[in-house]
Each structure stands twice: as structure tokens, then as C-alpha cells.
């Protein structure tokens, strides 16, 4: 897949795969093209060449509001929660394409079970939440759609280590419930720990890929990202 914005090409031919039930990590430095990759999958941008295939269907040219309907949800970089809506309303928006009041109610209570903090704050404006709570809300909103593929773009961004740990526990829990996850992270150690497979991206290309436990021991990865003293 090759992609970019207007005339600026960001991705120079990358190829990656996510199989059912696995967490795949996409790691690399700032500007490597991780978020651009995510945006190609969500349909926010369309690849210049190449294809995005999902369950055998080509979704490369599908508009983003339709891609959600195929079972792909995204918790975008910077969270992008609806600050002017309450926590409850944000979750409801996550089920925008879901029919049936009862069904939506059940899903909301499942999100509340996963993130009890959100239940405590359900009537509050999302803007007033802490960074960690906003991240929980972004993930909660994304799983309201009961996705088969969940895209998480930098869920640890700007959060305290304790909060990051909590959120990663929940990500593992979401995977146990059956969703495949494509996880974009700058925190390479964390990402390799939770994932089964990983791609290391640099300047728009896949530099390395393989089983996460293998990559963890790879001298290049250790030198460049894991920073051994």
C-alpha cells in the first residue's frame, strides 16, 4: 500500500496483516507513517495505490462512515472524544449504527463494567474528564460498535504510567472477548509485551516484522527502541 496527503507521499509501499483474535502492534518513531496507516484503514484517506482488504472485501475506497459498519472501529490519536457531550452521550454515539434501544443499553452497561470510572462520570461532559478517563471513553466508544477489528492509535499518549497500565489491562480484556486489535504505539516495550505480532515502521516503510517475543530480543530493536543501558 502506498499513501499520503495531497502530493506528500508518506507510506512507501507497506504491507501488513491482522488475523482474527490477535493483537498486532505497529511501532516506530514519530513520523514513521503509523497514523497514516490507520487513516487508510478507517477511510479518512484513500491509498494512492494498493488495497485495504477486510474479510476479503476491498474497502480502500469506502468512506469512513461506512467502514464502521463493516466492523472496524477506531480510537483515534489524541482521543477525539466529543467534549461537548456527556460520557453517556459519547457512548451512545459509538453505537450510532447499532439498532435497538435494549441492545444499546446492554452494550453501554458492558462498557461501564469494563471501565467503572465511566459509570461514575456518565452525566459529566467529556471535556471535564482527566486524560486517562478520556482515553477510556475513546476506547469505550469504539467498542460500542462491537468491532471485529479495533484500531487503537497511541492509547498511552500523555498518560501517567499507572494509568497506562490500567488501560493496557483493559485492552487485553477486550481481546479476550474476541476482537482483533491493531495497536499503534510509540512505547515499543509496552506494545511488544501485549501483542503477538509486530511491525516496526520507519520513514513510511516496514523495517522489521515478526512475532513480538522474537522482536523483543532483536538487537536492532533493543538498540533503537528498548534502550538498554
Amino acid at each position, binding site marked *: 500500500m502506498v499513501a499520503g496527503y495531497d502530493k506528500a507521499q508518506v507510506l512507501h509501499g507497506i504491507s501488513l496483516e491482522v488475523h482474527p483474535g490477535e493483537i498486532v502492534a505497529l511501532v516506530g518513531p514519530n513520523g514513521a507513517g503509523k497514523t497514516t496507516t490507520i487513516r487508510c484503514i478507517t477511510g479518512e484517506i484513500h491509498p494512492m495505490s494498493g488495497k485495504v482488504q477486510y474479510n476479503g472485501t476491498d474497502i480502500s475506497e469506502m*468512506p469512513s462512515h461506512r467502514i464502521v459498519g463493516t466492523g472496524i472501529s477506531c480510537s483515534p490519536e489524541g482521543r*477525539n472524544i466529543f467534549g*461537548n*457531550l456527556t460520557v453517556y452521550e459519547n457512548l451512545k454515539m*459509538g453505537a*450510532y449504527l447499532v439498532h435497538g434501544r435494549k441492545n444499546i443499553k446492554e452494550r453501554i452497561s458492558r462498557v461501564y463494567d469494563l471501565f467503572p470510572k465511566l459509570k461514575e462520570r456518565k452525566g459529566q461532559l467529556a471535556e471535564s474528564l482527566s486524560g486517562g478517563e478520556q482515553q477510556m471513553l475513546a476506547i469505550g466508544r469504539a467498542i460500542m460498535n462491537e468491532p471485529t477489528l479495533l484500531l487503537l492509535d497511541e492509547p498511552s499518549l500523555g498518560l501517567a504510567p499507572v494509568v497506562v497500565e490500567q488501560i493496557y489491562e483493559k485492552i487485553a480484556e477486550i481481546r479476550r472477548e474476541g476482537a482483533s486489535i491493531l495497536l499503534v504505539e510509540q512505547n515499543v516495550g509496552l506494545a511488544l509485551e501485549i501483542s503477538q505480532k509486530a511491525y516496526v515502521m520507519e520513514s513510511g516503510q516496514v523495517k522489521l516484522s515478526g512475532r513480538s517475543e522474537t522482536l523483543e530480543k532483536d538487537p536492532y530493536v533493543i538498540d533503537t527502541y528498548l534502550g538498554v543501558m
Partner: protein
Amino acid sequence: MEMSWHYLTQQLINALSYGSILALLAIGYTMIYGILGLINFAHGEIFMIGAFFCYMLVTFSGVSFLTGFFAAIAGSVLTGFLIERFVYNPCLKRSPEVLTVFIASFGASLGLRNLFTMIFGDGRRSFPAFDFLEGIIITESGIFINIKDLWIFGVTLFLVLATTLFIKYTKPGIAMRAVAYDANAARLVGVNSTTLVLVAFFIGSTLAGVSAVAYGVSYGIVNPSMGYIIGLNGFIAAVLGGIGNVPGAAISGYIIGMGEIMFVALLPPSYSAVRPIFVWGLLFLILFLKPSGLFRPNVKIG
């Protein structure tokens, strides 16, 4: 100065209709701005065309008030949809820059106003009177209340309430607020904003049509430039109310309406010609002191 309580109350009562007309217009501005991120300068013409639909049908075909009322709504909604389809939609698709759309919006406003001036001339035409709206109640303390003002206020109150509930509790209402805050995030949860834009134009234009009938009933006239100044005032009310905030826009419509009437009432008659200064002064003050408006806007700030 003999500024009695009685005189002030009378002026406030007189401002009920004018405030209602502005409130209904302000909601249209605020809803369309919220979802499209643009000021629909042609909203005043959507209002004017609604008034002409009602005026033409009642005057020349002798239809009932109710038919005329719905004709005004139909005329406004039709105009709103046409503007969306032929001005904003292609404009936003081709070059979504604020300036382009701003100029297009201005052009649509001028074009429609001049088209109607060409057809009807710019003279004032008398809007038909309806028996059930005529009559005055005189209270014990000697305050005069027009029956039509009560009707206008009542209908407006009902519509403001209905729109507020719609925005607050229904799925498209919540989605409209979400789009106003972050259109991209809204697409990522599956919102197709094309449909919502039409909903916003439908509601905004419907309220403009009602506002137009209220204007006709209240002032007894229609003319092609009737939507110009009043449209600007409605827009200022939308800014004052916090962009995207429906009840805020309505309340601000009344604040401006009453403020303007008081401005005229409290100053010597020779000043009444400069009443627009009051409104523009107010706008200047808001932009200076509290750019986000009096109430909480529904858009991302800063």
C-alpha cells in the same frame, strides 16, 4: 423623565413579537453554523421567501391562514434545500475554504434578494390580516397586550422547546452536536453528515418560515429586503447565544429584541434611526469581552 414601571412593561410586551422573530431566526443560524461551520448569510432570504409564499397564496388565492402558514414553511424549506444543493454542497466539495463559502453565501443572499426585487419591486406590500389574531387585551393596570403577540410568543415558545428537546435527546440531535464538535470523529463512529446537514436546513428553514409569518402578522408588510437587517440581527443573536447552542440562540433573540426596543423607548425619538448601532455595539462588546457568547457553545473552543 417620566420613565414609569408601566411604560417599561408596555415596551417589554411590545418586544415579545420582535424577540420571537429573532429567536426563531437565530436558531436557524446556529444549527447550520454548528453542522457546516459556515454562516448562512442567505438565511434572511429563506425567511423573506417564506413570507412571500404566504402573502401570495393568501392574497391572490384566498387560502386560509393555516394553509398560508404551511405555505410559508414550504417556501422557506424549499429555498433552504435549493441553497444547500446548489450553493453550499458544490462549494464545500470543490474548495472547502471558509472564504469561498462565505462569499458564496453572501452571493446567494444578494442574488435572491435582487431576484425578488426584480419580480415584485422593492415596495412594501401589505400582508393580509386574520380575524382571530386581531384584538387587544387591556389589563387592570392599563397595559395593552395584542392577541397576535400572545400567539406569536406562544408558538415560538413551543417551537424553541421542541427544537431544544430534539437537539438534546434524539439520535440525530446528539449526532448534530457531535458533528459540530468534531466532524471527523463523528464520521469514525458512522455518522454520514450529508443527511444531518439536510436535517439542519429543514429545521432552520421551517423556523424561518414561522418567523416570516410572525413578521407579516406583526408588522403587516412584506418586501424583498425584509430579511436583510433582521437576518443580521438573528445572526448576532446566534453569536451572543454561543454558536451551536439552540436555547442560547433563542434567549439571545429575546435579549436583542428587548434591548433594541428599550434602546428606542428610553432615548429621545430622534435617536430611533440609529437603533442598529445598539445591536452592532452589542456584537462588538461580546466579541471583545466574551467571544464564545453568553452561553456554552457547541463547538470546540481554542
